[in-house]
């Protein structure tokens, strides 16, 4: 029954911010249709893509996401009429900013997935997961998270005590 799934060296962390009316329902449909897709994605439900703040995406990357998906209703289908239109502009601008500071946009996917598009949900999630998997872990924000100003992190230098012969040589060379 349990198919043997391929073992991968790297399982990327994918976070999806979706609207409840279209994409969440589309993902439900993928479930009721027993479609299969990589299990890496973690879904956060919002009423509407209009509610999704760019800060959430930033935070997700900071907290270790390797890829982020934002998905909502097709234009014209928004349950709240225009939320996705506002989101579309907001994220168009945010993408430009992220790209400018050196974030690889291949890690950030936007899509319209309707409640009827279980298949498209599977495609979008699979494609993003596999793409990010080949890219490897996202180092940028994660590294940053552990970086400190030098004055805080000064303790690190205590680890590189050199042995005395080398030190003596240094003394000698200066003479």
């Amino acid at each position, binding site marked *: 029954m349990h198919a043997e799934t391929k073992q991968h060296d790297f399982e990327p962390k994918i976070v999806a911010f979706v609207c409840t009316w279209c994409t969440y329902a589309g993902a439900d449909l993928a479930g009721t249709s027993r479609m299969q897709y990589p299990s890496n994605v973690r879904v956060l439900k919002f009423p509407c893509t209009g509610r999704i703040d760019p800060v959430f995406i930033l935070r997700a990357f900071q907290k270790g996401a390797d890829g982020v998906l934002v998905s909502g209703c097709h234009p014209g289908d928004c349950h709240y009429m225009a939320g996705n239109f506002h*989101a579309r502009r907001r994220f168009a601008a945010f993408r430009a900013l992220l790209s400018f500071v050196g974030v690889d946009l291949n890690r950030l996917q936007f899509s319209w997935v309707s409640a009827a598009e279980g298949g498209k949900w599977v495609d979008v999630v699979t494609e993003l997961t596999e793409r990010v998997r080949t890219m490897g872990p996202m180092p940028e924000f994660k590294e940053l998270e552990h970086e400190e100003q030098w004055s805080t992190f000064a303790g690190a230098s205590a680890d590189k005590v050199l042995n005395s012969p080398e030190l003596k040589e240094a003394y000698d060379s200066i003479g």
Partner: protein
Amino acid sequence: MSRIGVFVCHCGENISRTVDVEQVAKAAGEIPGVAYSCDYKYMCSDPGQTLLKKAVAEHKLDGVLVAACSPRMHEKTFRKAAEAAGLNPYLCEMANIREHCSWVHEDRGMATAKAKDIVKLMVERVRKGKSLAPITVPVTKRALVIGGGIAGIQAALDIADAGHKVVLVERDPSIGGHMAQLSETFPTLDCSQCIMTPKMVDVANHPNITLFTYSEIEKVEGYIGNFQVTVKHKARSVDEKKCTGCGVCMTKCPKKKIPNEFDQGHGMRPAIYVPFPQAVPNTPVIDRENCTMFQSGKCGVCAKVCGPGAVDYEQKDTFTVEDVGAIVVATGFKLYTIDRKPEGSPIQGYGEFGYGTIPDIIDGMTFERLASASGPTGGKILRPSDGKEPKQVVFIQCVGSRAREKGISYCSKVCCMYTAKHTMLYHHKVHDGQAYVFFMDARTPGKGYDEFWRRAVEEEEAVYIRGMVSRMYQRGDKIVVMGSDIQVGTQVEIEADLVVLATAVQPQDGADLLAQKLGISYDKYNFYSEAHAKLKPVECATAGIYLAGACQGPKDIPDTVSQASAAAAKVMTLFAKDQLERDPVVAKVNEKYCVGCFACKKVCAYGAIEEKEIRDRQGNLVKKVAYVNPGVCGGCGTCQATCPSKSIELDGYTDEQIMAMIEAL
């Protein structure tokens, strides 16, 4: 420190087959803030729900997470159970480990890991969640219907019959609208006035309906359940209370040669008039622009002959404010009547058709009046120029409609059918006459419609020519119609006695201005926009306002009546409760930090955000802030994502909840 209970459902084997539910429950128990966790075969079953209720009591839980199917499936079920156990229903959430996990993944280890994560995220959501109370908005059970055509009449009657008060406002002196002008109706050819006028009388006599004719909407304030509408009652110059409708004034009025609008300008009326004999109310108005008394101050015949003394030249426009809970907009349509491009309009005219310059080129509605027994010709088909009976009539469809290059790309929907009807009416009245129809397609969806059209072609001898007319011009007393027959592939030239144009259906003049007063949206043609093209076809985006009839898009009578009844049903649903109760997922403003940039207001699709003044104790204005009307807010949260300082927050989806969830990733 919260005390959350996590209930992991096996869903028979639907979940447990791929997800190790015991492990998930165990892991959930270790999440900070979780006081209790368990797994159970069927959480949604009665025993499952009992288990949940018991656990809430036993473990003093202050929040509940059910890890099971999609919340779209059972969120209501479990929220009800949680409520029964004494919890606020909004502190009960679902973690979707079936549709989003067990059903879509095969690897047990990965699926279990994912299920644990989903539970962890959702626990944070519950932890940071707040108790929410449903929002109640008092409802004034009185409706306003704007427009007294068949749509408005039907809606008003339905609502009134349900026992609610209705205010019906009509711009013209009488209700009836376009339907009252029609001769016969398709596809049954029954007399329009015969079915229309009884309804008009019903409106006039209905104890629940207050009828304001010759009145317009001046201002709309408030929101769903609580609108305050200012109605302008234009000066009629006749006191409605005194007038008995005897009609002596009209017969005595010395000025009788004014083109009658009701007959499309082809009949005449006096300066004091009712638009048509069956008008409701049967109270005349004075057309002040054409009245000698108003223009020169000399005459006063009508006042002299009026027994009850109802004529009042001093009457002024008056205003009333009507409190209503719901509004049905039924302002209908007008026909495209332009012959050249009017200034500022994006819509091009048909100068090449000679419309407006050649008197025997008329529009469909004029033909209706010519064919109507109550019309200017008494129902005889006589052409306007010389009153002769036309022997060759050319009907042209799609004049304006479906002509993107002319500025209108939509189909006017009713023209195919009424042109077919016109050919029949013509054939019935002028037996030796010949009707030609230029058409692009014959669109006849509707019960009995195609049969009707075929009857026109096959039995009533109308000649349908597929193709468009390129030019028309007067030659002697004939109109030369030049066009192409694309089926045969030849040029056609017909010498017609009369040409009837099926001109496009357009929204009424001023539709955009009314929409602005109502705060509803409209498309580029000024047709009003429904909230959802498929699922909310009669609701406006603005809560409490509903659409009926052709103001929303071209419609025939049955569709209009259906939509009117649907709008009425929506109003009745709203009026079924004393208070409007709605989901508390609405935005709230933090007035301390709001600086009043009103970005929220700019992005709100519902018009739910108002400007509120904050004053100190002395009454000095401190600042202006945003205020969300909870009765109107749709709950999308676009405002919050837009607010730079997050001084507006959507309950149920707060930043704190979302950030905690992201933190738990």
